[in-house]
């Protein structure tokens, strides 16, 4: 049987984020058997009869050829949207139980989204942060924007601790236009605090998407021996037992994910959990399908 989606380990072996993004996006887009105008902003809405004064560029000449009537093709976001990606590069994002760390996965995701935006001529920007803003590429549609974005993503390395409030405050200062904001993080924070931190962006009329990136070992960890566990951010160590990990930890992480999803939905945000062991193109396609259905 052919591998339908790209295994994350395959992606990790591809050098160059640009190529990764192209591989991911082109792969699943061509597999959809849908028009290429599937995306974040350019979503087909309806046909409208031509009336004087309309821009001839929007006339669907194919329809005119068949029916000899001029119709205009209408899109849901006719004007190009502004997409801002907030990439968390805190130390905890460096965790990975297999060949791909969470940060690698998040970088592939970010690059893929940027590539898609670039294809659709949307203005895409990125803010890389941990407890402070590490890098900022303002959204733009200028030539070479994708290269700038990829460069910023490639430079993203695991930093220190996560602090959503400070970078998001910063973000509010940068973003003057409404658009889509995608926050990619492992959200090791209480769901209420996460939502509280990102809500101000929502109030500005932005559409918010929370990509929750987690390693399978964070969701269902397995240890065979009682051992010391070291917090990658705080460097605190704690003894844990297999019994605890098997039972209580799982309950807690499940509750955390459920809480985050619940709070996000209630706040009108999109929440999508990404397991790093899952093929990225598959996950992205699932999310976009859900998003489309929601429209």
């Amino acid at each position: 049987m052919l591998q339908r989606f790209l295994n994350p380990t395959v992606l990790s072996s591809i050098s160059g984020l640009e190529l990764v993004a192209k591989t991911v996006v082109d792969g699943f887009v061509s597999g959809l058997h849908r028009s290429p105008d599937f995306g974040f902003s350019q979503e087909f809405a309806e046909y409208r009869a031509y009336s004087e004064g309309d821009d001839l560029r929007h006339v669907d000449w194919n329809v005119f050829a068949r029916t000899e009537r001029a119709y205009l093709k209408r899109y849901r976001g006719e004007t190009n949207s502004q997409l801002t990606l907030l990439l968390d590069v805190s130390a905890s994002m460096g965790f990975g139980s297999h060949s791909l760390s969470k940060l690698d996965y998040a970088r592939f995701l970010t690059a893929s989204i940027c590539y898609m935006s670039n294809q659709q001529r949307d203005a895409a920007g990125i803010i890389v942060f941990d407890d402070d803003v590490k890098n900022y590429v303002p959204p733009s549609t200028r030539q070479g924007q994708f290269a700038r974005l990829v460069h910023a993503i490639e430079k993203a390395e695991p930093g220190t601790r996560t602090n959503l409030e400070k970078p998001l405050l910063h973000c509010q200062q940068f973003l003057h236009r409404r658009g889509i904001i995608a926050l990619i993080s492992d959200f090791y924070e209480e769901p209420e605090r996460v939502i509280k931190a990102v809500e101000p962006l929502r109030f500005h009329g932005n559409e918010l998407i929370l990509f929750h990136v987690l390693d399978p070992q964070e969701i269902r960890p397995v240890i065979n021996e009682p051992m010391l566990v070291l917090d990658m951010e705080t460097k605190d160590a704690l003894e844990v037992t297999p019994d605890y990990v098997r039972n209580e930890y799982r309950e807690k992480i499940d509750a955390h994910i459920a809480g985050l999803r619940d709070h996000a939905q209630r706040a009108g945000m999109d929440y999508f959990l990404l397991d790093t062991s899952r093929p990225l193109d598959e996950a992205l396609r699932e999310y976009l399908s859900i998003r489309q259905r929601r429209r």
Partner: protein
Amino acid sequence: MGFLSPWFLGGLAALGLPVYLHLLKQHKSVPLPFSSLMFFEKRTQSSIKHRRLKYLLLLALRLALILLLALAFANPFVTTAVNPMAEGKKLFIVAVDNSFSMRTGDRLAPAKQQALDALSTFRSGDLGQVVSFASKASLLTQQVQDPAGLRTAIQSIAQGDGRSSYAELSQMLRSAAQASHVPVEVHIFSDMQKSSLPSPFSELSVAGNTRVILHSQAGADEPNWFVESVNAPRSVYQAKKVRVLATVAGASSPALDTDVAVVLNNKVLETKKVKIPANGRVTVEFFLADAPYGLNRGEVRVSAGDKLAQDNTLPFALERKEPGRVLFVHEARQPRGVLYYKTALDAPADSALTVDAVTTDQAANVSPQKYSFVVLSDVAYLPVQFEDSLKKYVRGGGSVLIALGSAAATRPRVPIFDEAITESRYSGRNAERFQGAASVDSTHPALSRANGFEGVKFYQTVQVVPGNARVLARLTDQTPLVMEKKIGEGRALVFGSTFDNIANDFPLHASFVPFVEQSANYLSGVEKSAADFTVDSYLELRSAKDQGTALEVLDPDGKRALSLSEAATAQTFQLPREGFFELRRANGRHELIAVHADRRESDLSMIPKETLALWQNMGRGAEQNNGPGGAGNTHTAPYSLWWYFALVLLIVSLLESLFASRYLAAENEPMVRKEAA
């Protein structure tokens, strides 16, 4: 509690090793990095405590392992009270003397009967063992409970010709007592011969739990006359009378007028009347006129009416054969060398070699193959054919003696020896008048009796480059005088002067004859081996060059004494009995070996009663010292615990393996495994 081998407790020092290793290799928990501890809580079931407990247990097991090992080797014991009689078991040993002296009046038969009678005290449950002893103690049975087996073994004891040794028997008894943990009761049936006692009496000591009961087979000292020794040549070469010297002696005996006869091939050749003094000896001389060619069986007999008749004769072997021939090659104008050499070689009473002298011109048609060795006496020229055949002869194992003089010095190289002649030196009137021998290897068989050429004046010597030859003697100016070289299988001996009275005055010295005789014997391979063998002595069967070749030994009954494998490999053969043994050596030579019993067995003087009592009490004395009441009472004995320690050691080692494998497995296992996606 004590230790039988306390030195092994030194092994306890090894206890430091696991402690050291455990301290070095102490497990250090490597923390597992994780994204966040947000969802973790500390649990009281401490992994470290758990691991530390396992670690301490493993360390304790390893320490116990070494401790037990050291203790087991140290052989701990506890002293326990033992009452041998209460247990009722004992080891019953019957030792019967079958040495040569037991032939006196057939003492062996009553000894065996008494031994059988002694078995009546053998109780069921006891262990019994039968031993026969002469120069060695032979175990005829294992330690068995079956008296029938012991009886059969006693009845099977055969008369021997060996010399009895009570020290050997005591050694065996000590070993038996040490091996068995029950009291030992030994019944010794012997003629209690004084000559069989070891010189240090302590060699008769037995273990403390051994009770010795002596059964003497002799009532009193028996008078005995015997042929003590016979001195006869082993080989004769000349047609002269053979001198045989016999010594006849008496032990515990009065003076006796009797006949002594010499017998050759069962034919009495001569009888002489002698008077043997009381407890003394007398020497009788015989001259045998017509010893036939070949191997002859001879014996000297004394007529005496004593009870030990077997020592009244003493066998000897005599071989008459043709003397070997020596080819003496000399220049026709120098006949003096052969005169001196031949005279010296014929000088011994029974020379094994005769000289055939030829001039160099006559040598052309002579084959050296039929000669024992060849002498080249100062030859300037050799016929080519002869020289070639001589070279072949030497390479094939023959020998040559080369004397060098003024004639030989004209040659560039020494013939056969093939080393360069540098010069012929004359000691002139101006400087020294003559040379003397300075350094002589007197350990060499050809020079051992040459007396270091002492006083010999060498006026003319020929200097030869030694090359790879061995220099056996040098002159004062370091000129090599005697050299030896191996050529192929044979050898060449070079004498740097001549055998005449011109170049030196050696023929006029007393050391000339021994030198000629010894060098001739050495070069011809005539061996002067011993001719007098006693029972239980060893006969050397083969020399270094005879390895791997089969030989044969026939006993006095004409039966093969060696198995096939022994015939091919045995180096020595122990002569088990009196009589004539025939030996066919690997080189094809036949020899006759005359074997007689050790004549110390002929002295039938008994051990004094006080000494016998002392011997009997040796074991009892030790027994009595162990506790009041003597034999049959409770005494303490060490009870070894090593077996228990070894058992615990085994269990601990199994536990250690189990814990160690688990401990190491836990360490090596990956701490986090990927969950199946």
